[in-house]
């Protein structure tokens, strides 16, 4: 499949343009909101810090938030692109594959039963939950002779998500205090997190990003089909395993910081595919960049809907994402 942008040079230029756009969005994310902030205040907050209200908002709230939006948005989008490649299924994404609900269940279990609260504990819990959820769904979806079909994968994912979320809710009904503590997290939000949350996960993100850029050409081969890839000398098991690990690092890390933010992982890779086609060497950087843009924009939008309070960004992405998902489901050719 060819994208709109065909020439290599144009693709490279496109990446640079999107990168510039990310910077514009980040500035917007820092400046816009209930308290509007000028560029001067922003620069002074880091050069001449005087403890004024606006400067504190910038250092403790806006800048961490913008950085988290960039990291989480791009990680989710890359994870989604990889999942779609690995399962050869256009509807695969972290929430469909049970990553979000698995991680949520794990974290809520730890919070209600063992009182976990540190960012690093959250990170590992989210990784474990994400890995367990996606492995279960993947195995269930690929049972049988015809292997992994979109419908089986989606059904298995939906059933597991239903199970996990009803267990999560069961745990929460037995403990109302922890419901108040985690409900904001369960919706998916990047507000009110500080850089500690990000730094607990950032190393895993960086490993995930680098590996995903390296694995692009391998996935191109894998997309030709399991048998073709094998006959071309690829160790498909290793490639699949590596892809799986990257997905868990990126998606699990995102859930650990921001909670289950849905639909970025499904919408963005499709937009990227429309631009550059199915070549994973380009698709992955494009997905990552566009994911950052989408989450930044959704986050800015979320501040304006019910001012002065905010819509959690997870809700904003769901509102954008549901129609896109339905569009994709309608476009697909199902008998």
């Amino acid at each position: 499949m060819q994208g709109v942008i065909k020439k290599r040079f144009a693709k490279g230029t496109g990446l640079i343009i999107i990168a510039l756009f990310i910077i514009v969005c980040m500035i917007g994310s820092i400046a816009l909101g209930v308290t509007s902030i000028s560029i001067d205040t922003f620069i002074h907050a880091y050069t001449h810090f005087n403890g004024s209200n606006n400067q504190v908002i910038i250092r403790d709230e806006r800048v961490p938030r913008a950085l988290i939006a960039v990291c989480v948005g791009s990680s989710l989008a890359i994870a989604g692109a990889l999942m779609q490649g690995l399962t050869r299924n256009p509807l695969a994404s972290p929430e469909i594959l049970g990553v979000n609900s698995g991680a949520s269940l794990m974290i809520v279990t730890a919070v209600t039963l063992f009182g976990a609260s540190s960012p690093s504990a959250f990170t590992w819990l989210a990784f474990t939950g994400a890995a367990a959820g996606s492995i279960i769904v993947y195995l269930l979806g690929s049972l049988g002779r015809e292997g992994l079909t979109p419908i089986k994968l989606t059904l298995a994912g939906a059933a597991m998500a239903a199970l996990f979320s009803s267990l999560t809710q069961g745990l929460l009904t037995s403990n109302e205090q922890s419901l108040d503590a985690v409900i904001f997290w369960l919706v998916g939000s990047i507000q009110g997190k500080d850089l500690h949350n990000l730094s607990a996960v950032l190393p895993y993100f960086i490993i995930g990003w680098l590996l995903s850029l390296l694995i692009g050409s391998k996935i191109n081969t894998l997309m030709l089909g399991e048998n073709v890839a094998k006959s071309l000398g690829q160790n498909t098991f290793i490639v699949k395993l590596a892809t799986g690990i990257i997905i868990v690092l990126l998606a699990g890390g995102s859930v650990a910081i921001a909670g289950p933010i849905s639909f970025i992982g499904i919408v963005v890779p499709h937009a990227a595919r429309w631009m550059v086609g199915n070549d994973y060497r380009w698709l992955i950087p494009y997905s990552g960049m566009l994911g950052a843009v989408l989450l930044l924009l959704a986050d800015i939008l979320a501040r304006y809907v019910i001012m002065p309070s905010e819509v959690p960004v997870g809700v904003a992405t769901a509102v954008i994402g549901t129609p896109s998902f339905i569009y994709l489901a309608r476009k697909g050719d199902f008998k």
Partner: protein
Amino acid sequence: MKHNIAFRVKGMSFLINKKGLYVFSAALIILIAVIIASTALGDMNMSMIEAAKSIFGGGTSLHNLVVRSFRLPRILLAAFAGMALAVSGAILQGIVRNPLASPDIIGITGGASFTTVCFLALFNINDKGVSISIAWLPLASFAGAILSGLLVYFLAHKKSILSPFRLVLIGIGLSAGTEALTKFVMLIGPVYLASKANTWMTGSVNGASWPQVTALAIWFTVFFIITFILARRLNILELGEAVPVSLGSSSNKDKKILLIISAALTGGAVAFAGGIGFVGLMAPHMARKLVGSAYGALIPVSALIGGILVIISDTIGRTVFLPLEVPAGVLTSAIGAPYFVYLLYKSRNH
């Protein structure tokens, strides 16, 4: 040996499947036994005979009070919710021609949850209760169920062909969307709402009252009778896309009517008992194993199995984990998800 008993009166005649009749009777007896057993169990245990007596008002006055004011409404509400969900699931599986469809998976439950939570948030006064009668609540859930049912139905059409797969996919997408919106309303809404809505979404029959039982019983009975009359249409739909048309049945119109009935049944159950998961998936399936897939027998038997499942789950939830009370929906999901896995595993080579 003949498989059917012919039943003829002036003006109408039908065949009753013998096996279906036996299974139905057996399931009915089990349902009654489960109701009595569940009545006997709880904080205050009593014997089955005492429980049966108290149901009809013949026990000691304390037993009568506990049974008739607290336990019985709860158990009957569980029974009707389970039956409604099971019939709803049986219909959906017929329309979609896929044994894995159920009201919670295709987004009907999600839509109902959303409107119900909105209702609770909109008419909230001072975090204490709602400003208009709670009797309107079912209407809100029903509206949500029907709206999401119709939305899924129309979106699943393409070039006037209803693809079952597309129906399922769109339902899943829609339920993800409504779930996020529901959580959002819980978040911005009053504080008490969050925990109340959370319990309710999981599916619980705690705090049932007689008026609720009556309302759901009427609701269920009406739609059950309609479904039973339409059972033949479902049999035809099971044959695929082309056969119904060649048999003179308007496939799409039937699907629409049946989908609305299915949504109505789910809406009723969700309104009173919340989103009890997986019953709509499991019950019809178990029934199909027992009586085969002819809907005349399948629908009543699924209903009974659904009722049995929810009563058992609720009884376990309120007795085994004391002093905690686990909502029935958690237990049905805990049984339902492995069952779903088993179904996927079993259908692996089809």
